[in-house]
């Protein structure tokens, strides 16, 4: 790396502000949420009506089924359900 003065370094550091803390926490919890995600996917595979409700409105269907889903869990579930 060449041609970096202090002003350029400062400009580059300004380009990377942190996202809201909650976003990072939600993404970081994915491994812990794995068991919940797996259980929801397994139930969707065994129960066509549940799967249909999930596909129509994931958030509402999860709430009705008693699951508390964070944004990261919702994103992971969408991915798994689309692939399935």
């Amino acid at each position, binding site marked *: *790396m*060449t041609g*970096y*003065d*202090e002003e350029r*370094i*400062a400009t*580059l*550091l*300004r*380009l*990377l*502000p*942190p*996202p*809201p803390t909650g*976003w*990072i926490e*939600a*993404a*970081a919890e*994915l*491994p812990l949420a794995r068991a919940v995600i797996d259980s929801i996917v397994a139930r969707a595979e065994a129960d066509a009506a549940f799967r249909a409700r999930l596909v129509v409105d994931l958030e509402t269907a999860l709430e009705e089924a008693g699951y508390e889903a964070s*944004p*990261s869990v*919702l*994103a*992971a579930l*969408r*991915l*798994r359900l689309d692939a399935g």
Partner: protein
Amino acid sequence: MPTQTDAELVARCRAGDPDAWNELVERFSRYVYAICVQAFRLEPADAEDVFQDVFARVYEHLDRLRNDEAVRPWIAQLTRRLCIDRLRASRREVPVDDAEELEPSGVDETVAQLDEAMAVRALLDTVGEPCREILDRFFARDESYRTIGEALGIPSGTIASRISRCLSKVRAELEGRS
């Protein structure tokens, strides 16, 4: 302490190291966020959805990555694709087939700058504390001298000179690597 390479961090994630995923999210969260809001100018709600989707896919598909050292370009590509999908979904009423038409101008340049910024940011670990914390709080978090001083227990009147010295240390590190 030398910073762990991206490849080493990916390997630890694959091996199931419980702390490695947190570190990976921490390392790339600003990068993904910046691509969403600076390169694609997504609204906060859309940016959050893309952000979570990116990390869900990274978590799910990390074992598909062929070259562990290439995790950053892979994440960048994934983020760009999901940002385009999001823009496409929000403009459904106007049919747009070509991804290039959806991509705002200057995305390549912005992502290139963010890559440079990530490289400089990685050096903050090598200059150590309190420089890393001071520079991050002042430039990236946009905190005032007073806030930084109170948080770090440093007289706020000395923050400006410390910032200047810390920037010089980062510059010296950069020159040492050229």
